């Protein structure tokens, strides 16, 4: 058997976490270094995957398969294809960078880094698991550390936010569990294998597919989050400490969209078509509603949280289109949003560390005071509002293009969201960076090296994908093309 590279990527953080548990809690430096090293190792291995990935092969690569619970045909089955590779890379990258950003955590570091590393393992596992049972286990493993990370190190309303997040997602995923079981018993060979189930898609009746689709939808829509299941998100984002907000926006929200692409659509093809219009409508609601609510916010983090709701609407719209362009846009949008929203949360954290407030109205004129910070904030804001030449534009454009092919009116409405998005981002930049300097901040220090270190790789990716999108698209295109063909969508 070859070197189990995927298992290593997934379980290296957990190994690091167990080592952290053995380090005395006063040795904060060693704890931080251990966490950094293990997340970095995991990141390096996933970069290796990018190099060794075979573009012409649309099947699963680097597969690992071991029998786990033979009594009910459960396997430890991992693998990546073009759909999961980008998100896996994104997760390892953000895990590493947010780990560096976590060095600022100043109490209970040992517990923090243990939970943080456990969280990383859970998130990574979700993107490589090919057995529904295993997928569910990783999916749920994410919840517990997240609950603690928000609940212990969060802001003033942390306990409320943590329990709300926990119960919302668990309630959703319990329905998903029922869906998983329904698929198992309906499949002719009684399997949890995602690939085998997808191959047997035609044996499921449409009525059954619709029911199961709804069950999965409840699990995934809470994570995406799709209106009206989004209300946990602003609370969790606002209360979570900065690095956790980064992972929430950057990775956790992608788990829902990934679930649609990996499970709902391939396995429940008929139901996917049945719900296409519904997806488009929900996408448009997310885009426009999220943008409007974001505009009304005075809390910086809350504004970005709602902008996430809006941006995830493009994923829904792209998926609804059933075109190759739309699917490409949706998947790339997930990746791009992970990078951009992650960076924006890091930037809010930078500001909050210095000012101890996130009230947008309390700033002003910082542009001259902290020029490097101002530059970065502007670039990432432009990326987020979809300025051509930066990553966000490419994926949003592709989603809209795909959407327009299938649902013209809904897409026209969705485009309105882009204008509002531009509005609230520029309004934010104006309130924070321009105008007269608020005397309170006259001693504010510019961004420091550690913060710059976490933002630079993200900046490079945003620019690279913006200029040369094929860099990312070539990974995902073949797999999505196969999926579209199986779904009977348009290869447009």
């Amino acid at each position: 058997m070859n070197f189990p590279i995927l298992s290593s990527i997934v379980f290296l953080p957990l190994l690091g976490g167990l080592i952290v548990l053995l380090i005395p809690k006063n040795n904060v430096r060693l704890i931080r270094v251990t966490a950094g090293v293990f997340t970095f190792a995991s990141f390096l291995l996933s970069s290796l995957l990018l190099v060794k990935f075979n573009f012409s092969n649309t099947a699963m690569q680097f597969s690992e398969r071991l029998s786990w619970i033979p009594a009910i045909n459960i396997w430890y089955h991992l693998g990546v294809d073009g759909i999961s590779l980008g998100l896996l890379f994104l997760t390892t990258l953000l895990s590493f960078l947010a780990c560096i950003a976590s060095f600022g955590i100043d109490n209970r570091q040992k517990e923090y880094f243990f939970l943080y590393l456990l969280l990383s393992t859970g998130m990574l596992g979700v993107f490589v698991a090919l057995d529904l049972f295993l997928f569910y286990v990783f999916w749920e493993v994410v919840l517990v550390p997240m609950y603690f990370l928000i609940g212990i190190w969060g802001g003033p309303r942390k306990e409320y936010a943590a329990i709300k997040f926990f119960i919302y997602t668990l309630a959703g995923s319990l329905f998903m569990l029922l869906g998983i079981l329904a698929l198992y018993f309906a499949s002719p060979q009684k399997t949890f294998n995602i690939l085998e189930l997808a191959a047997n898609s035609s044996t499921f009746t449409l009525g059954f597919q619709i029911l199961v689709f709804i069950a999965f939808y409840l699990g995934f829509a809470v994570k995406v989050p799709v209106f009206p299941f989004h209300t946990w998100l602003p609370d969790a984002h606002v209360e979570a400490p900065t690095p956790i907000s980064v992972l929430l926006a950057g990775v956790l929200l992608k788990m829902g969209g990934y679930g649609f692409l990996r499970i709902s659509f391939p396995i429940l093809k008929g139901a996917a078509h049945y719900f296409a219009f519904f997806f488009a409508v929900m996408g448009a609601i997310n885009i426009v509603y999220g943008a409007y609510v974001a505009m009304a916010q005075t809390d910086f983090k809350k504004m970005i949280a709602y902008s996430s709701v809006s941006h995830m609407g493009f994923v829904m719209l792209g998926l609804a289109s059933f075109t190759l362009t739309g699917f490409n846009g949706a998947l790339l949008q997930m990746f791009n949003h992970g990078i951009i929203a992650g960076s924006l949360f890091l930037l809010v954290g930078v500001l909050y560390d210095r000012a101890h407030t996130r009230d947008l109205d309390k700033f002003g004129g910082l542009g001259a005071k902290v020029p490097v910070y101002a530059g970065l904030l502007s670039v990432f804001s432009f990326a987020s509002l979809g300025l051509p030449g930066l990553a966000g534009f490419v994926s949003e454009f592709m989603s809209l293009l795909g959407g327009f092919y299938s649902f013209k009116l809904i897409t026209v409405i969705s485009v309105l969201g882009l204008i509002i998005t531009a509005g609230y981002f520029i309004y934010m930049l104006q309130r924070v960076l321009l105008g007269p300097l608020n005397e309170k901040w006259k001693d504010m220090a510019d961004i420091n090296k550690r913060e710059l270190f976490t933002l630079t790789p993200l900046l490079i990716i945003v620019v690279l994908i913006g200029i040369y999108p094929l860099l990312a698209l070539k990974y995902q295109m073949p797999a999505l093309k196969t999926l579209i063909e199986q779904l009977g969508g348009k290869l447009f």
Partner: protein
Amino acid sequence: MNSTESLIYIIPELLLFTFSLLVLALGALYKNRNILGVVSLSAVGLAALFLFKSHSAPGPLFFNLLSRDSFSQYFCGLTLLCAFVVILISMGYRLLSERYPAEYYFLILNAAAAIMLLVSSNNLLMVYVSLEMLSLTSCILISFLRGDIFASESALKYFIFGAFSSAIMLFGISYAYGIFGTTDLSQISRLLSVGSLNNYAVFTALVFILAGFAFKCSLVPFHMWAPDVYQGAPTPITAFISVAPKIAGFALLLRVFLNSFASLTLHWSGLFTLISILTMTAGNLIAVSQTNIKRMLAYSSIAHAGYILIGLAVGTPLGIRAAVFYIFSYLYMNLGAFACIVLISNSIKSDNIEDYAGCYKREPFSAFFLAMFLLSLAGIPPLAGFLAKFLVFAAAIQAKFVLLAVIAAINSAIALYYYAKVIKYIYLSEPQIKEAVPTPLPLQLALLITLSGIFIIGLYPHPFLRWITALHF
């Protein structure tokens, strides 16, 4: 098989009886509870050794009164495991140090023996006799802190409720005798398979018999005793009461309803579904508002009884296996949780959830262990409680009891709230600084057994599932 030939198959029970008398005698000489505890532990260990060394009996024992098949062997094993852990917990419980340790262990050993006879019963009269033996021993154990007003109240409640439900059951048994002319379960099964009996009459008898079992399993509407008894009893006994009678009750439900009365499945499947829904919903909803952790776990254990009953309501082979597996996992996580409560109450001298604030700082290990057990009870993977719930849900979905599965799923989400509430106090609230007291070795051992149990069952359930699949009546 006649009595003399049968004796070798009940060596485990005989060992427990003998050792319980030995403990009483030793109690006159030694007042040290640890010596008596170790003697009791070795009794349980020896019994387990004999239980698993001997093969299951070829046929019914004692003129068809008992049957030591692989099914009863399994449940006897669970009972012994439960007794073992409870004795370990008792050895570390602060309030028991000077109070009649010999009598205490004597009663636990006898209660365990009663359960072993109960799960092996093949005759309704034998069921009744051993059920009463279990009730009496439990009742004394519950009132063991006799100066305490809650203890007296709970013992009285347990006794009256128990007597009430036993009386109903006895009526059911006499009714069954009237129909079948026998109380032998295998003969009843044979008569039923022939047919020509009035199904409604049989069903009526069964409903009455169900009352006695429902009391032991704390199923709605026979659950009312649980919260008060859980609160008033000494915590190790609460742990015992929350697990052992449930083992017995569910084993009997499985044997009587799914084996002997299997031909009436259609009749009681609906009844079980209804009771299951009521039990888990009532348990979970009331648990949410509890402020005492023992009361909260009482309602949570009612809810878990509801989940287990799903497997019986479904009645398929997978359903039975799921219920049997659930009981196994439930044993570890519930006993573990109570062991943690004993440990924490040793230092904070309170069972109020609010007093658990900041517990992680004072007692990092017991705080972590309790969090794990609660998460397992909440059904979070990869712990044992998740797999148990998974199998129960699977059984429901397979048999197309979709509504039942959906209600169970909603209930699980509600349950998370109150488990997480305790975890919130432990980890998220500010600590009230108090001195931690040292952890007694037996308690550490109990925690070790239960914690490794929930992890091993959760991560590598294969051997256990294989064992359970091989069980037969």
